[in-house]
C-alpha cells in the first residue's frame, strides 16, 4: 500500500470537516484584501481589521450590557410566542371553526409590517421591555403556528383511527400521537422563529431603547462609526447563529428520534 494514501485521506477528511470555517476565513481574507488594495474609506466598507479594532475599542462590559438587553428581549419574545403558538395550533387543529376564524386574522397580523406599527405599540405599552417583547413575539409566532399545525395535521390517519378505535381520549390523541409526529415540524418552526426573534428585538430597539445591540448599531451610525456598527452587526449574527444551533442541539438532546436518519 502507498504510505501517502492515509495522509491524503486525512487531509481530505479534515478539509471537508472544516470546509465552512475555511470558506469563511477565505471570505474575510478576500474582504480585507479588497479593502487594502482598493483604498475604500472605512465609512463605506470597513475592513475586517478595522472592525476587529472597533470591537476591542468598546469595553467588554458595554458589549455585555447590550448583548443582555437584546438577548433578554429576543428570548422573552420567543418563549411568549411558543406559549401562544402551541395552544393556538392545537385549538386550530381540533376545531375547524377556530381554524376558519383565526387563520385570516393570523395572516393579517403576519403581513402587517411590524416596523410600521411598532411606534403604536410603544405608545400603548411604554418604552420598556413589554413593548419590545410584544414586537418580537408578533414577528416570531406565525412560523411556529404554521409549522405546528402542519405537523399535527400530517399525522398518519391510520394512527388516529387506531387510537379512536381504542377509545383514546382527545388529549391523549393530541399529546401521544399528534404532537410527537409534529416534533420535526415544530423544531423547523422554532429554528425559523429564533432567528426572527433577534430581528424582532433589533427592530424594537430601533424604535425605542436605551441599550441593546440594535440600539448600539443605530447609535454608531449616527456618529458615523461604521466599523463599530459592523462590529455590532457581526456580534449580532454570531448570537443568531448560536441560538439557531442551540435549537438544533436541544432537538438532538431531547428528541433524538425526531431527527432524520444519518446516511
Amino acid at each position, binding site marked *: 500500500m502507498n504510505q501517502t494514501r492515509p495522509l491524503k485521506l486525512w487531509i481530505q477528511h479534515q478539509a471537508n470537516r472544516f470546509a465552512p470555517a475555511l470558506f469563511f476565513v477565505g471570505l474575510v481574507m478576500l474582504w480585507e484584501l479588497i479593502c487594502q488594495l482598493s483604498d475604500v474609506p472605512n*465609512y*463605506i466598507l470597513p475592513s475586517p481589521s478595522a472592525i476587529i479594532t472597533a470591537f476591542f475599542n468598546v469595553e467588554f462590559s458595554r458589549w455585555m450590557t447590550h448583548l443582555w438587553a437584546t438577548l433578554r428581549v429576543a428570548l422573552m419574545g420567543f418563549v411568549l410566542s411558543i406559549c401562544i403558538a402551541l395552544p393556538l395550533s392545537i385549538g386550530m387543529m381540533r376545531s375547524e371553526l377556530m381554524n376558519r376564524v383565526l387563520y385570516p386574522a393570523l395572516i393579517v397580523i403576519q403581513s402587517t409590517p411590524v416596523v410600521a406599527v411598532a411606534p403604536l405599540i*410603544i405608545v400603548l405599552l411604554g*418604552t420598556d421591555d413589554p413593548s419590545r417583547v410584544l414586537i418580537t413575539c408578533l414577528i416570531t409566532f406565525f412560523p411556529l403556528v404554521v409549522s405546528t399545525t402542519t405537523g399535527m395535521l400530517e399525522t398518519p390517519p391510520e394512527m388516529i383511527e387506531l387510537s379512536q378505535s381504542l377509545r383514546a381520549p382527545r388529549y391523549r390523541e393530541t399529546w401521544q400521537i399528534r404532537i410527537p409526529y409534529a416534533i420535526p415540524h415544530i423544531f423547523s418552526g422554532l429554528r425559523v422563529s429564533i432567528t426572527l426573534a433577534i430581528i424582532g428585538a433589533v427592530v424594537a430597539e430601533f424604535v425605542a431603547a436605551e441599550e441593546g445591540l440594535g440600539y448600539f448599531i443605530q447609535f454608531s451610525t449616527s456618529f458615523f462609526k461604521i466599523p463599530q456598527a459592523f462590529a455590532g452587526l457581526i456580534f449580532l449574527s454570531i448570537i443568531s447563529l448560536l441560538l439557531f444551533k442551540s435549537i438544533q442541539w436541544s432537538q438532538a438532546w431531547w428528541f433524538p428520534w425526531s431527527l432524520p436518519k444519518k446516511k
Partner: protein
Amino acid sequence: MKTAMTSVIKTAMKTTLRLSLLTSLVASASAMAADKVTFQLDWLPGGDKAPVYVGIQQGFFADEDLDVKIASGRGSTDALTKMATGQSDIGSSDIGALMAARAQDNVPVVAVLPYFTQAPHAFFVLKSSGIQSINDLKGKKVATSPFTSSNAFLPLVLKQNGLTEEDIKLVKSDPGALSPMMITGNADAIIAWVTNTALFKAQAKGAGKEIIEMPWSNSGLSLYSSSLLAAEKFLEERPDVAKRFIKAFSKSIAFTYQYPDKAGEDLHKMVPEVDADIVSAQIKSITNLVYNDVTKEDGVGHFSPARIQKTWEYVAEANGLTMDALDPETAVNSKFVPE
C-alpha cells in the same frame, strides 16, 4: 450531574435576587425624597443633547432634589408623541414640529424654554466643488434624509435666495449615507444639521477633502428651533417640580457651553460609546445656535413674542398651514422660567 447544575443555578439566582433587592433598597433609600422626572431626547445622545447629562453629572438636578431619567427618541414627532402620551414629562424637540402638531391636532405639549434660538439646518458642500453660495446650487444634485425637519424649510430658504425646488435635483437617502455621498461625489451638496459639522469635517479629512457649511440661518431663515418642551399634564400636576427642573436645566445649558470639554466627559461617563472629544467638538461648533444676536437682544431663556410669531409664519408656510390655524402664543408657556 443535573442536580448539581440546578443547585448551582439556584444558588446563583438566589444571590442575584438578594443583591438586586439590596441595591434597589439602597437606591430607593437615597432617592426616597427626590422627584422623578423622565426627560425625552428627540434623537440619540450627542453633543447637542449634552445639557441634561451635564445636569445629572454635575449634580444640578440633585441640588433641586430631582431624579432625572433620560429616554432617547427617534425624531421630533416621536419625542412629541412620547410627551403627549405621558411616557415622558419634559424634553427637547423642535418648536416648529410642536407648532405644526398643535395646529393640526392640539397636542397637550408646550414650549417652556428656548434652546437653539437659530435653526440648525444647513447645506454642506466640498470646498473643491466650487459652490460658494446657495445660488450656486442651481442644477446641482442635493441629498437629504427622508424624515428631517429641514425638508419642510427647504423651499423657504431656496425662495429667499431666488431659487425654487425645481432648480435643484433633490434625492433622499439614509442620514448616515449623506456625508459619504458628498465626499465620494455622489451628491454635490447635502442637507443636514450643523450639529454634524464636526463629524463631517473629520470624515472629509480622512479622505483628504475639506467641507464648507452654509447655515440657512445666514441666508434668511431665522427662527427658533430645538426647545425645551413639557407635557401640559406635567406642568399642571407638578408645577413645582417643573419649575425646579427648568431652573436646573438652564444652569446645565450654561455650564455645557462654558465648559464643553467637561460636558464631553460627563456625556461619555453616562454613554461610554460616545467619545468625549467628539462631543466637545460638537458643542463648540454649535455654540452660536444657543448664544447669538437673538439671545443678546432678548436675553437668554426668554421666548420673544415677535420671534415666536415669525417662527410660526415660517412653520405655517413650510407645512402648508393657514396663519390662523394656531395662535403661536398658545404653544408657549413662559411662567415656569426662573426669574
